[in-house]
Every structure is written in structure tokens, then in C-alpha cells.
């Protein structure tokens, strides 16, 4: 209960006009940055962080938290509208968000994403109050072996995401793993496939590849099909407010996934490494596995948007746990924040919360308020953004390609990145035409280096023995979970079959049977 008091104090501390202005400015700025293809939360914080170095820490952290949420959500907007994830954590959102937009339900997808993010923000804030010690234990028991198993769980998404030809899907994933090997071999320090170029020693970044392969290739593909000659979108182009609201069925289909994604995301986010990405992929995986209609995933299932969006948002909150309770950054964004703590003259570490309760709880409270603000602002901005989806392709194609190019360049001011983006666009186009899976490639590219790194670390520690996975308590627990995840889809379809065989009633379990899906 003490923590609740702290949270209330934190809320009271930040409820000043100045802070609320900072909060709304941050959310808006973040959203604008996030909408730029390629610029996600990490870039958003990085770009706007210097503005805060002279502010008081509480005001600064409020603004940064707002920027974080705003840009995270901005990334969702591009993921849904133009199939371009702003950072790896929104990759999963494109799987069903973009198909929804293509079906004319862009506004609904964005509202579902906003609603799921909001729910995750609230659940995260509650969990940080009641489950922080548990999450801290997750952090302190996760070494390389556990991280490897977690990455493996993320990679299992490949099984779910590959539809159509399994061979082509695996080929796509292998291509992704191959691209991921470029750069410094972390185990030996040797350069792999850099051809002597210093620009490549950092490896091929995921973002330019994602922008090219998803955003630009999608445009090229549409142009190739001659869609620009058509009459434009079949949907009516009135941007009326009421058009964005999901119908009751969509809301119902989203609630469960959002709730599960929130809890899953929070704990996965507390692990050091790529928490939010793995969390969102795991959530997608989970939702498709337990869905009664898994075949709708990838075709615009609201659950495929709600789950991952809740998970990546909750992971962002979860990542705060190790940072606040241990002084350990759990993600690249929190690593930047930790640097900011030092700039503000705060000492990160386990005593941070004790020594600066106003700051720490102000941060948590501002994440809570930031989500409220985001939801409010989005009620007004979603119709505007959603109407973009209704602009005919012949007007939209050029700006998308220009923005994609600019966004790619802006990340590191690197022309090489632009070249990578364009190459990925061409590759993406061919992959689409030959039925390969761009999503599988991207997942492999994001998780490949993590898997390699954590496995190699594990094997250095264990002298090459795989027995280490059975020696560590946390590993064993994770292995069991992994087995469960793997077995879940089979088990569920089995149970379902048995249920439908034994019961004559059409309604299966807790929910009443719904009318046929719309759209």
C-alpha cells in the first residue's frame, strides 16, 4: 500500500500546469517524430534529450517519458498506415495493422492500438507498484542462457508467421540471419562481410532494412500492379470522427489480447536485452496460437494489433524496473535515459528510488498520465492520420518514398543506410513476387544477432556444454515455458476438437458466439 501512496504523491507532484504542458508537448513532439519512417522512440529521445539537460530532472523526465510514448505510438501509426515499423518493437504491429488499413479499417486499427497501449500503460503502472520486486528478480536471474531462451521464444514466432510455403519462409528467415552476420564478430572481434568498410563494422541496422522492405517495397509492389491508375481507395474519404471507432466485436476481440499482452510485456520488458521486440512477437505468437480463428491472423485480425501493441508498451514500463530498482538499463531507450540521469546529476543505482522518490515516482506517474494524454490527443489526431490511408496511391507514393529516404538518412546521417534501404526495397519487391516472407526475414534480422550473441556467451561460460540450460534454475523454468509455448497450439486445437465433438452446443466456452465478422 505504501507504493500506492508514492504513486499518488508522484501524481500530485507532476500535476502542475507546467508539467502538464511539458507532457502534452512531449506526446505531440514524440508522435511527430515517430511518424517519420525510421525514427522511433530511441531516436526520439536521442534527438530531444539535449533540450532537457538544463531542465529540472522531474520536468525533464516527464517530457522524455511523454516523448517516449508519443514516438512509440507514432511508430504504430506508420506501421499501420504505410506498413513501416519505426523500430523493431512495432514490427509485429504491421502483421495485422496494415492489412486492417488495406481493408479500410485504418482508424479502427489505430484506435485499437491506442486503447491497447493505454491499457498496457495502466497495467504497467499497477504492476510496477505491486510486482516490482518480482520483476527485479527476473532481471537479476537473467544471464546469457536465459536471454538466449527468451530470444528462442521470440524466434518461435517464425513458425506462426510463415504461411504458404514453409520452404520459402525458412529461406527468407535464413536470408535475415545471413544479413545479421555482417559486422563485428562479437566473440572474436573479427570482421565479417564488411569488405573493409568501417561503415559496416556496426553491422546492417534493422531500421533501413525494415523501411525498405516493408514501406517502400509495398509502394513499389502497388505501383507494379498498376494500383495508381485505379480510382483510388474504394473507401469513402470522409474523415468523420465516428468512422474511426472499432465496432463491438473488434473491441471484444481486442480486450483479451491486450490484457495478456500487458502482463507478458511487463515481465519480458524487465529482462535485459531486446525486451519490447521479443515481447510483442511473443504476444502475437500467443494470440495466434490460442485464437479460435488463427487463419484470420495476417489478414487484419484486431487481436494481432492489440496484443503486440499492449506488449511493447508494457515492456517499456517493465524496462523501467531494472533501471529504477537496480540502475541497470534494460533497453536502448532506457540506456539513453540512464545517461540523462547522470547529466541531471542523479546517481543511478538501487538507491535511486529511495533517494529521489519524487523523481522516480514522478516518472512512473508521468508514464501513466502520458498514456491518458496520448489517448486524448489521439481521439483528435487519428481521424487525420486515418484519412491518409484513404489518399489515392498516385498522390501518396512519392511522399512515402521521399519520407522513407529522408528518415533513413536522418537516423545516422549515413548515405550507406539509404543504399541499404533501397536495396532492401528491391529485395523486398522480389521476395513478395516470389512468395517469400519479408516478415520472417525481419524477425530473423532483429533476433539473429541477439540469439548468436547470447548463445556464444552461454557457451563461453559453460565451456561449450549445453548442460548449462539445465543447471540454472531460471533456465529450467524458461525451458518449461518454451515447451509449453511450442505445445500450446497443438494442445488447444486438440481440446477444441474434443469440445466440439462432445458438446452439441455451438457456444464453446466463456464467450457467446458472435455474428460473422465484418469487413
Amino acid at each position, binding site marked *: 500500500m505504501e507504493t500506492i501512496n508514492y504513486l499518488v504523491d508522484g501524481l500530485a507532484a507532476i500535476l502542475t500546469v507546467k508539467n502538464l504542458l511539458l507532457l502534452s508537448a512531449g506526446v505531440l513532439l514524440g508522435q511527430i517524430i515517430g511518424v517519420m519512417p525510421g525514427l522511433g522512440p530511441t531516436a526520439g*529521445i*536521442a534527438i530531444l*534529450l*539535449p533540450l532537457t*539537460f*538544463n531542465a529540472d530532472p522531474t520536468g525533464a523526465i516527464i517530457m522524455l517519458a511523454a516523448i517516449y510514448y508519443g514516438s512509440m505510438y507514432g511508430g504504430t501509426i506508420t506501421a499501420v498506415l504505410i506498413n513501416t515499423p519505426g523500430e523493431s518493437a512495432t514490427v509485429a504491429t504491421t502483421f495485422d495493422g496494415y492489412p486492417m488499413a488495406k481493408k479500410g479499417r485504418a482508424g479502427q486499427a489505430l484506435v485499437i492500438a491506442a486503447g491497447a497501449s493505454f491499457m498496457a500503460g495502466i497495467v504497467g503502472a499497477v504492476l510496477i507498484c505491486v510486482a516490482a520486486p518480482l520483476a527485479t528478480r527476473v*532481471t*537479476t*536471474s*537473467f*544471464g*546469457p*542462457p*536465459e*536471454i538466449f531462451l527468451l530470444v528462442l521464444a521470440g524466434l518461435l514466432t517464425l513458425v506462426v508467421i510463415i504461411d504458404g510455403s514453409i520452404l520459402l519462409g525458412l529461406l527468407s528467415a535464413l536470408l535475415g540471419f545471413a544479413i545479421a552476420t555482417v559486422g*563485428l564478430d*562479437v*566473440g*572474436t*572481434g573479427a*570482421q565479417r562481410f*564488411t569488405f*573493409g*568498410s*568501417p*561503415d559496416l*563494422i*556496426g553491422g546492417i541496422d534493422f531500421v533501413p532494412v525494415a523501411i525498405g522492405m516493408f514501406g517502400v517495397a509495398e509502394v513499389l509492389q502497388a505501383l507494379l500492379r498498376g494500383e495508381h491508375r485505379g480510382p483510388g481507395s474504394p473507401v469513402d474519404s470522409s474523415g468523420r470522427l465516428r468512422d474511426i471507432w472499432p465496432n463491438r466485436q473488434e473491441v471484444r476481440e481486442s480486450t483479451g489480447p491486450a490484457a495478456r499482452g500487458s502482463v507478458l510485456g511487463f515481465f519480458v520488458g524487465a529482462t*535485459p*536485452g531486446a525486451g519490447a521486440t521479443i515481447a510483442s512477437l511473443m504476444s502475437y505468437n500467443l494470440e495466434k496460437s490460442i485464437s479460435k480463428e488463427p487463419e484470420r491472423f495476417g489478414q487484419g485480425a484486431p487481436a494481432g494489433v492489440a496484443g503486440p501493441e499492449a506488449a511493447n508498451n508494457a515492456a517499456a514500463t517493465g524496462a523501467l524496473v*531494472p533501471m529504477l530498482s*537496480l*540502475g*541497470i*538499463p534494460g533497453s*536502448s531507450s*532506457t*540506456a*539513453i*535515459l*540512464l*545517461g*540523462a540521469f*547522470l*547529466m541531471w*546529476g542523479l*546517481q*543511478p*543505482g*538501487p*538507491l*535511486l528510488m529511495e533517494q529521489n522518490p519524487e523523481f522516480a515516482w514522478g516518472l512512473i506517474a508521468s508514464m501513466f498520465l502520458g498514456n491518458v494524454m496520448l489517448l486524448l490527443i489521439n481521439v483528435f489526431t487519428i481521424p487525420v492520420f486515418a484519412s491518409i490511408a484513404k489518399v489515392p496511391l498516385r498522390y501518396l507514393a512519392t511522399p512515402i518514398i521521399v519520407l522513407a529516404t529522408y528518415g533513413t538518412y536522418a537516423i*545516422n*546521417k*549515413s548515405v550507406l543506410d539509404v543504399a541499404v534501404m533501397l536495396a532492401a526495397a528491391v529485395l523486398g519487391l522480389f521476395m513478395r513476387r516470389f512468395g517469400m516472407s519479408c516478415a520472417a526475414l525481419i524477425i530473423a534480422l532483429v533476433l539473429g544477432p541477439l540469439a548468436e*550473441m547470447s548463445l556464444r*556467451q552461454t557457451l*563461453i*561460460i559453460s565451456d561449450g556444454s549445453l548442460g548449462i540450460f539445465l543447471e540454472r534454475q*531460471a533456465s529450467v523454468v524458461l525451458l518449461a515455458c518454451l515447451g509449453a509455448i511450442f505445445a500450446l497450439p497443438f494442445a488447444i486445437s486438440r481440446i477444441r476438437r474434443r469440445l466440439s465433438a462432445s458438446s452439441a452446443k455451438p457456444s464453446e466456452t466463456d464467450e457467446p458466439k458472435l455474428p460473422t465478422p465484418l469487413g
Partner: protein
Amino acid sequence: MTISLMKRVKVAIVALALVAAASACAVGEGSGNGDEGGDYPSQAMDWTIAFGPGGGNDRLSRQIVEILQQEDLYPEDIMLENREGGSGATGWGYLYSQKGSGYGIATTSGSFITTPLQADTGWTGADFTPVGSLVTEDSFFMVRGDSAFKTWADWVAYAKEKGTVTVGGTGLIQINFILQKLIASEAGYKIKYVPFNEDGQVQSALLSKSIDAMFAGPGEVLGQIEAGKMRALMFTGPEPLAQAPDIPTAESLGMAPLPSQPYGLVLPPDAPDSAKDWWIATMKKVVETPAWKKFIEQQGFSENVMWDAEFTTYLEQTTETFKRILTEEGAL
């Protein structure tokens, strides 16, 4: 410089600027140092940070720029830009490409030495025009707070008995690895070194009992030490750190001096002497300001001031040391 004097100087600057463009030299003299001729500086400064926000280079660069602005030392604009990528190769490569210019500048860190060792960057630290070394970031040798090792001697006894211990750090061709190798060979035990990408992962690996020890900068771990989650057994700096005076230095434990992470400032290769002299004179003032002293203490840095060619020599020597160790270990 008092405020009223500054104001008068500013007024003089405005008046002069109205008279002729050539008065730009008076701007540099009036607000910077008095002994430099020529018209430096008369343009905006393109300040490169070779790493992302929040890192050591970033914090250092922003602090220097803040002091330059507060003290009105640089009369023109300074444009700060994070150009991260390739362990600094991108940012410093960008500075390298401004050969001959006096209007590009960047801070340097340990990677300024190690990155050219591991990649074909086309430059080494010695190619750049040195301004000077400013601070070093020394490290603590850290073990878990609940471990049985209370002192460095405890650790060495354990490591020797075990033969090979597992330690970790960021990267492989990095100072962390070199330090671990140096102390292990001096104390007479072997290590398995586990490389990580980020500081946070190393700390998490230590707490999760995946590794037994690590090196970490004061900024990251002073809070951990204070809270008892981790314990520092040794400090690599020549003097104990003010915030942790009880942690013995490597030298006080009878070890040879250990290399540290040198932070400095460089201009592009072949920068004009006027630019180099201006920056050396100006930075001499910066390192005397209270704001600078406070910054150093807050970050857990140690003062390590050397100027001009002395800095280049230091870079060259450190490079040789690193190269020798890394070659011996087969990492290069």
C-alpha cells in the same frame, strides 16, 4: 571575467562588426584569448559526437559546449551532432574527412584507440590535430555484493585456486578486456572473457551469477556500491576516487599502473595552427571553471590534462600497449 567586462566586450564587438567584416578577429580576441592573431574563429563550429546521446562522449561534449556558451568563449554558433555507428568509426571518420579545416571538432574516448585497431578505418588517433587530453575514466573491479570476496586478496586466492574464472565486459577489443588480461596475468590466474554489447547486460550477467567479476566506470556503479548490490575490490586510477576513498587503487595493491579510458579533444587532420592554438588556450580556461570541476566529480572522472603533442604521444603509446596485449591474446 566579470559580467560588466563581458558586456563591454560584447558592445565593442557589435560596434566593430558594424565597421568592417575584418573585425571578426576582434571577436575571437575579445571573448576568447588575447594572444592569437588571425581571424579564428569566425565560423560556426561543427561539433561531432561519435557516439549516441547519454554516453561518455556525449556528456563530455555537451558539458564543454555548455561552459563555452556560459562563459561566452566561442563567439559563433556551435552545432552539436551525434554521429554514431561502428564504435565511433562513423563520427571520427566524418571529422577525418574535414581535413585542413579548423571548424570541425570531436571528443575522443578509449574507442579512439581501439576502433582503428580492429577495423580498417583509414585513420588512427595520431592523424588528427590534437587539442588535448582532458579527463580519464578509470574503472572499478566489481564482484557481487553477496559474494565471499571482501578484498582483492580474497579474489586472487579464489581465482588462483580455481585456475580459470569467468569475467565479462563490453566488447572484446576494448579496454575492459585489456584490463582483465593485464591483472589476470599479473596475479597469475586465467580468465574466460564473455563479451557483451551493453553495460546493462554485463551488470545483469554479474547479478545473475553468470560471470564472477567485471570492470565498470564509476558513473554506472557508484550507486550499486553504495547500495551493497555489488562490491568494488579495486580501482584502476592512480589515486582513489573521491566518492569511494576506501576502494584501494591497483598501485596500492602492488600492481603496475593500469591503462585508463582517456577522454580528449581533437580537430581534423592538418587543422590550421591558429585553430589549434585557440582551442588549447580556450580549453585551458574551461578546465579551470567550477562548472567543469563539478562535472568531473559528478561523473566520477579523474582529471588528466595534457596538451598538444603530449596528447598525441600519449595516444601513440597507449595504442602500442593495447596492440601488444591484444596481439599476444590473439584478438588481433
